[in-house]
């Protein structure tokens, strides 16, 4: 009796220990699997930044686009992977009191034009046709490499558009417009040809949410600065330059991005909270139903930065000309005497 009670008392902690060790093994395995599951499957990043307005009073749209361009470059995407479409008539405009600069902040703190801007489509080349050609890849063979979107099925693409828009359309350079259905069809053609792994679409125009209503291809996440029926407002006029310098939504998105560095783990849910109605006057919207992963597992750097997957190289090829014979037992290799 005493023996059995002693045994049972000893067995219980032992069993507890065994269960604990199994549990920890199982959880560490599950954790590793879960970590792999939530990581994005991309190997490179691209960005297509489009400003669809021209003329001096649309200064803020060019400043918007250039600020996003700067952030994206700072977080690691190289110029060869950015397609920048701008009317580019601000910096050298005769009405610009500070030539060769484009400022994004009052008191002229930040010159976003800088020395190393690389504009791929400038001035009258920014048309609906060229934009759709870049997206779908139907480019004439004579186009240089810098004007192409050479993405593949493992690319995450960020598409940022800004300008004047309405319910279901976006105005390009005051002469033509692109409708939300054309945009949705272009994305579908990209998906058919597997030209992207995941796509983040950000639009900062009036009634911006109407532009993403018609998307139907998988793996697209969309953000807009205002809902249908609302106008997106600009942020602050600058008395020295005489125009509004930025739009509110992009201004607060940029403030948010300034705190991100390439190693940060901030996720998309924080980006959705940027610019609430109290600051922005319009209601920013987002759409995630086409996206497969949960937004809280999507890192900001998955789209805005370029964090590569790396693997340590563990094996080498021997370049000596002896013909040794290797033995395989399971997955370990042993070298036999040559």
């Amino acid at each position, binding site marked *: 009796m005493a023996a059995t009670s002693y045994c049972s008392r000893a067995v219980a902690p032992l069993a507890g220990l065994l269960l604990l060790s199994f549990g920890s093994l199982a959880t560490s395995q599950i954790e590793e699997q879960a970590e*792999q*599951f939530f990581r994005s*499957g991309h*190997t*490179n990043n691209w960005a297509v930044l489009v400003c669809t307005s021209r003329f001096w009073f649309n200064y803020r749209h060019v400043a918007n686009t250039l600020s996003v361009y700067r952030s994206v470059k700072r977080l*690691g*995407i*190289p110029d*060869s992977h950015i397609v920048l479409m701008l009317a580019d008539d601000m910096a050298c405009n005769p009405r610009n009191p500070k030539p060769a600069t484009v400022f994004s902040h009052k008191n002229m703190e930040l010159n976003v034009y800088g020395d190393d801007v690389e504009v791929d489509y400038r001035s009258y080349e920014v048309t*609906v*046709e060229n934009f*759709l*050609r870049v997206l*779908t*890849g*139907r*480019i*004439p063979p004579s186009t*240089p*490499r*810098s004007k*192409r979107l*050479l993405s*593949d*099925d*493992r690319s995450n693409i960020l598409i940022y558009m800004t300008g004047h828009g309405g319910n279901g359309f976006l105005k390009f350079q005051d002469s033509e417009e692109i*409708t939300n*259905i*054309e945009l949705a*069809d272009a994305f579908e*053609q990209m998906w*058919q*040809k*597997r030209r992207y792994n995941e796509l983040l679409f950000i639009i900062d125009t009036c009634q911006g949410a109407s532009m993403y209503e018609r998307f139907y291809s998988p793996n697209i996440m969309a953000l807009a600065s205002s809902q249908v029926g609302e106008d997106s407002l600009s942020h602050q006029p600058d008395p020295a330059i005489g125009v509004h310098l930025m739009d509110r939504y992009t201004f607060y998105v940029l403030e948010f991005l300034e705190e991100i560095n*390439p*190693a940060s783990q901030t996720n998309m849910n924080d980006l959705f909270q940027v610019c609430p109605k109290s600051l922005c006057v319009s209601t920013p919207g987002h759409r995630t139903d086409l996206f497969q992963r949960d937004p809280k597992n999507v890192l900001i750097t998955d789209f805005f930065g*370029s*964090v*590569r*997957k*790396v*693997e*340590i*190289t*563990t*094996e*080498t*090829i*021997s*370049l000596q*000309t*002896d*013909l*040794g*014979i*290797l*033995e*395989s*037992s*399971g997955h370990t290799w042993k070298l036999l005497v040559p």
Partner: protein
Amino acid sequence: MVPVSVVFTRESVPLDDQEKLPFTVVHEREIPLKYKMKIKCRFQKAYRRALDYEEEALSLGSMQEAETMLAEPQEQAEGSLTVYVISEHSSLLPQDMMSYIGPKRTAVVRGIMHREAFNIIGRRIIQVAQAMSLTEDVLAAALADHLPEDKWSSDKRRPLKSSLGYEITFSLLNPDPKSHDVHWDIKGAVRRYVQPFLNALSVAGNFSVDSQILYYAVLGVNPRFNPASSSYYLAAHSLPHVINPVESRLGSSAASLYPVLNFLLYVPELAHSPLYIQDKDGAPVATNAFHSPRWGGIMVYNVDPKAYNASELPVRVEVDMVRVMEVFLAQLRLLFGIAQPQVPPKCLFSRPKSEGLMTWELDRLLWARSVENLATATTTLTSLAQLLGKISNIVIKDDVASEVYRAVAAVQKAAEELASGHLASAFVASQEAVTSSERAFFDPSLLHLLYFPDDQKFAIYIPLFLPMAVPILLSLVKIFLESRKSWKKPEKTD
């Protein structure tokens, strides 16, 4: 279909089984894909008795001699395999090894004296043949898009997609030219080590190699000092951020649209020497190199500390190209998807030849690439058809139509050649299918900019036609009334 010819030596199987030779056995397997599609994998084994010189070769003492004797008479077609079955007690293989895979599409399997000899040996042969040509993971990697969703394996994402050509760039990064005067004989190294490898791979595409030296190019991460070994190290989690600042300076050829593979050799600055790369557990990596899928590889080359003693700065550094090329070639193999095959247990492997590539590894690559090309071409053509079905006012020009016809013919030819086991012509046909289908799909004339919603149609045409229509209608009414009046008139005067 993989043609395998199985050669039996005299004491490998019981005598009555030997009487049944020669005959052919076909082994088929189906692999399911998405959308209820399947791929059939067929191994056609042609059994025969060994010829005299083969018997002689296989009774020699060591594997090398046997191989040299066997290799002489014939060169085998791509995609086919030859398996030699030797007797159970032969000393050609070490005692506990059941099979051996050679560098040139040959393998040796031990026979057995048993009633069910053919079945048992048949299974062993299938295992060896699968390791040398097609397995489910090889096809899975090639068809990553088209398989059901379970793609969370890095092996499947690492290789480059199939393309007509590739550009390989070797770059030497010297951030500290004041201290190190680095020289590397890249031309000689490429000629001696890389070119043979690329020549062996030349069936898979056109390769162009270039090299450059970049000065004052630093890595994006500051290495940390490890006082225990008085060296600097780069932790594993900081490696992903190393590449980006360098990439903008690497440059790429403006003219070609082929995918680029970059191989960087970094000689750390004097202040940060020696520099080691640590893996996840904190141990320094033997090769001091890492690679990124679909991009390339980086290796850190530490200058020998003895070189600093004698002379003043800058110290002349001659890079040991053999060590460097060993790592780069290994990375090149991995990036191309020449992965380690799943070997059957108790199997011996021969070391790759001096080119770094065994012929059956090339075959594996070609099988995978052909299947991948076929899948890509068929999806491209299907999506083109869907696009045309949805948007009816696209005009198809004649040259687009001829590309489509050519693509379809090439797909059919490639499928036939694959089924009959001619790997080389199947691969060429599949490449042609992909180029034609891509040219048809990406033709600039197919851009659809003609979206007209119904309300916009009304909004455009009504203001145009309504003002014109009003006087026309009114005058029609007037004509009708007048003609009615003229009919009524004769009645009245009567």
